[in-house]
């Protein structure tokens, strides 16, 4: 084959990854007596990671610019109770659904803008602005709901979080259908990947994370792009909240706690650098998948739930360490 050395190396790496993955899946499947790869289980894993993966896509944008968004977990709670609240007493289901989505995603986006503004205007560290938002959004969620869950009786809304689509396709593999949140997740991942790799905005996100001063001197509107990533992250938190609230048929002010760290874990396990300038949505998706699979396996293998957290923490550390060693290995050649 006529390939450049770089292309051959990429091919070799990708090939090695796929072979390794297949072997791993077969071994895990045998270990769980065939439970692991059953369609029901696979669909279950994807359903479980949908909320995290949607958050992690937004988080990837922010982290590539060398920022961080700690507010997304609390924003799930705030946008969740807001959506549930606006649907209460709305007689026309379709209107309630549209208003709720608009309010949820919109409020998330506005919160993102509030996160971003002090970063671009006064050069505050994003760690601080989003930490403040994390506290404020959580408090606002409790204030708005009076601390109580708000029930959602809008069937269409709940179907987005808990329903299935394409029953025909589902029956082929013995399922009632493809879970709707999985489809939403895949749409977000594909759209995120497209924006990051194919558009001008995506290119600027990498440029700013790689060298902000060079980006500025190249005429890039650094403030605008940074505002954009925080708004995307906030809006996606609103969307993730829709999936979660729909599944539970409730807006819960306590929900989403710790999700910001789960999403950051998915991003770093997926090979995105916290220093900025490097990373991908595909990597983030693989990271979310890995964490989801691990949780699922431990359940199938009846690992005690306290021990599960220990294992999860250790795996995140090892995954990032291996990625670092791999990079050094390839850099030295």
């Amino acid at each position, binding site marked *: 084959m006529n390939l*450049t*050395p*770089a292309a051959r190396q990429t091919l070799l790496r990708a090939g090695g990854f796929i072979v390794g993955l297949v072997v791993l899946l077969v071994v895990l499947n045998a270990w769980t007596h065939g439970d692991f790869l059953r369609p029901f289980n696979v669909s279950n894993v994807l359903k479980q990671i949908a909320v995290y993966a949607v958050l992690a896509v937004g988080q990837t944008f922010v982290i590539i610019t060398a920022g961080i968004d700690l507010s997304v977990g609390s924003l799930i709670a705030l946008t969740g109770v807001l959506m549930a609240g606006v649907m209460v007493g709305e007689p026309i289901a379709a209107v309630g659904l549209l208003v709720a989505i608009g309010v949820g995603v919109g409020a998330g986006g506005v919160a993102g803008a509030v996160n971003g503004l002090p970063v671009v205007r006064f050069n505050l560290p994003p760690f601080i602005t989003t930490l403040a938002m994390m506290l404020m959004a959580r408090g606002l969620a409790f204030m708005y709901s009076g601390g109580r869950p708000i029930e959602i009786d809008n069937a269409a809304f709940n179907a987005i979080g808990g329903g299935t689509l394409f029953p025909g396709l589902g029956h082929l593999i013995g399922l009632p259908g493809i879970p709707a949140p999985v489809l939403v997740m895949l749409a977000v991942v594909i759209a995120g990947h497209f924006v990051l790799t*194919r*558009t*001008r905005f995506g*290119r*600027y996100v*990498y*440029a700013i994370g*790689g*060298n902000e*001063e*060079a*980006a*500025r*001197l*190249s*005429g*890039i*509107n650094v403030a605008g792009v940074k505002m954009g990533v925080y708004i995307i992250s906030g809006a996606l938190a609103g969307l993730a909240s829709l999936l979660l609230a729909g599944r539970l048929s409730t807006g819960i002010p306590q929900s989403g706690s710790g999700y910001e760290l789960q999403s950051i874990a998915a991003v770093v396990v997926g090979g995105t650098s916290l220093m900025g*300038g*490097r990373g991908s949505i595909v990597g983030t998706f693989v990271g979310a998948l890995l964490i989801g699979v691990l949780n699922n396996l431990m359940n199938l293998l009846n690992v005690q739930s306290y021990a599960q957290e220990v294992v999860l923490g250790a795996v995140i550390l090892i995954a990032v360490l291996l990625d670092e060693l791999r990079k050094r290995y390839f850099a030295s050649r």
Partner: protein
Amino acid sequence: MDAAPYLAMRGISKTYPGVHALDGVSFDVRAGEVHALVGENGAGKSTLMKILAGATPPDAGTIEIRGQAVNIRTPRDAERLGVAIIYQEFNLVPGLDVAANIVLGREPNRAGVIDARALDEQVLSVLKRLGLDLPLRAEIRTLAVAQQQQTEIAKALSVNARLIVMDEPSAALTPDEVDKLFVVIRKLRSDGVGIVYISHRIDEIFTIADRITVLRDGKLVETGAASSYKADDVIRLMVGRPLSAHFPTLPAPTQTTPRFAVRELRVPRRDFGVTFEVRPGEIFGLAGLVGSGRTSLLRAVCGADVPAGGTVELDGVTLRIRGPSDAISAGLAFVTEDRKAQGLVLGMSVRENVTLPHLARFVRLLMVDRREETTAVQKLSDELRIRTPSLEQLARNLSGGNQQKVVLAKWLLETAKVICFDEPTRGIDVGAKAEIYELIARLAAGGVAIVMASSELPEVLGMSTRIGVMRGGRIVKVFDRAEATQENVIRYATGTVAA
């Protein structure tokens, strides 16, 4: 005075890839003398001092302290041998106070608990020896540059330094502060401390130095008593070579109306304006010492910093520039001095770096058309002879000269009307330099107005149709190419003649 040298460096050589930084240089310093080390940029002063500091090892040569051969491999070794270096960038912790900085790493303590009284006593005794009065409890960040420098000197003395190297110590000081610095230096000298004084300011050297050593192109020119030279002698020894022949023929500007006019432009934090004009096809060179304000001026002209006042006109039209993007859309390009910090995104490919300022041009239906990008960048890459295995190679992996060509390519993708170059050939090899000179001459011949700032005098003289000499943020003198010589440019740059 003890005539035996405290420090003797003999036959020191150092080669970097492609550059003979030092070639058999010998240099000694006696206890209780101020020894000035002078030379143009790239003459080898910093390399020699880096070797003395243990920051880089020599390829050949020996170092003796008090007649004993020593091996200085780390900065710790240098400190142990009584050698302290005060760089232009101070090594102080901005958030700690003066006293804490002076004793940093050597705090008097009992079982790890700092003994505050002993600490203050120790600091006060050092300050007394220097005749300095510094606020012990003031954080470094709140102090003026001159006081920070005094803290550095006190710190050096508190580790018992017997030899202190000062690298351009007066660069950021006012004339009054320089006088105070000299008082401290004389005090150190009478205490038997040896001082290496590195400076571009010839007048200062004659005020303070006992001996002078001149380096040029990595070689020792000569060492002698300061009283045996005049300022002009030293300048001649520093320059000492004919202009290199590798500069291309420059186009003669034909039009007389300026393409680009900068009027009373005020650089941030300066309370005066700067004015100059450049005609199409003209290369206006900016010469001056380190800190003379060349870079700040270019940054304000090109919108990298927002000017505090004044106007910039292009073809008779006043531009409104509030940032780099305004400058770019008006047709102004700025090739920055530090390609790694300001010019390139090192983790991006050659293709992505080159198209960064003009990415909008390649967008079709929201998407960046990579094929079109590749076609355009390939054409430029061939023209500039960028040596890279592919356009997808990361900028990080290219050599300095090729990185610089990638930065140039960024600004050649669209036809600019004015291009400002800041140190266009710093740190690149001779072959790449010649190619960049030819490119600049070709751009000028095509009618572009060029402003080129450089600290390499031969470069400014060889590549400019007119030369503005800067000092203290002002253009103090403009020479036509024919009247400019290294000697008279240096005279204006150092202030040895009244402007």
